[in-house]
């Protein structure tokens, strides 16, 4: 049964309102800074894909130093956590403030169990790539059926 996630719904509504305001020519997002993606539960945004042996995750982490990032796996859950530090503090008149900063942690449910000893990750230009090997028992097995 699908559960109703109030935070996900609010974030979706925020995006729609922002897009409507931008479409109307307003560059500043309607929603306040505390509802920026870093402050909500949807940072970083992710894409998943899979093949027979692995699950691949791509995450958007602009402004995050890879040294400040932790990746952990437990069975079929992946947790990406870290901190997007504030940008160089420049004092003056703020014309646009659309980038958030702060600590983040996101736990994602993967389609299969993962082998925790076989994970590789890289991060370049704000794009993180994670390759997670499927646990042996989660890999597809071909079963021969003997016809009598």
């Amino acid at each position, binding site marked *: 049964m699908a559960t109703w996630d109030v935070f996900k719904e609010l974030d979706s509504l925020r995006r729609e309102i922002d897009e409507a305001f931008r479409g109307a020519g307003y560059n500043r997002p309607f929603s306040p800074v505390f509802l920026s993606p870093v402050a909500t539960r949807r940072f970083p945004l992710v894409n*998943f894909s899979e093949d027979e042996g692995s699950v691949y995750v791509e995450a958007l982490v602009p*402004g995050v130093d890879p040294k400040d990032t932790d990746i952990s796996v437990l069975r079929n859950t992946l947790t990406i956590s870290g901190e997007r530090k504030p940008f160089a503090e420049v*004092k*003056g008149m*703020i014309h*646009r403030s659309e980038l958030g900063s702060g600590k983040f942690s996101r736990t994602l449910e993967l389609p299969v169990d993962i082998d925790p000893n076989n994970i590789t990750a890289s991060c370049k*230009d*704000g794009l993180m*790539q994670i390759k997670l090997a499927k646990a042996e028992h989660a890999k597809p097995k071909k079963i021969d059926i003997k016809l009598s």
Partner: protein
Amino acid sequence: MAPNSLTERNDERNVQTREETRSNERYIRPAVNIVETEEGLFLTADLPGVAKGDIDVNVEKGILTITAPAKSNLTGTPVYSEFQLGNYYRQFTIPDSLDHEKAKADFVNGILTLRIPKAEIAKPRRIEVQVG
């Protein structure tokens, strides 16, 4: 907004939205911070997935344009998707009082940092008033 703002409205130089016929390309509007200081304009933009050499920052007729292509390297069969990568594109109107020739750009961890100083003539000067 203060009357001497660097992003003061100028009806003669309006940024046009990107409209092209026969183009199926999607454009992503990168999020930015823009701060005006006494020295000039300080801009930071989220450009994840872009290679440093592919970023194009251009100033022409008072319009600052940022374009940068980003491409996903995800292999396998897609299962779940929250974002798409494509061409980043955003424009801003900036005044002539900025010295574009001395602009400096930096790109670290997917964040573009752009500093455009004010032209010497546009910088605020403190004038001592002598009481005689």
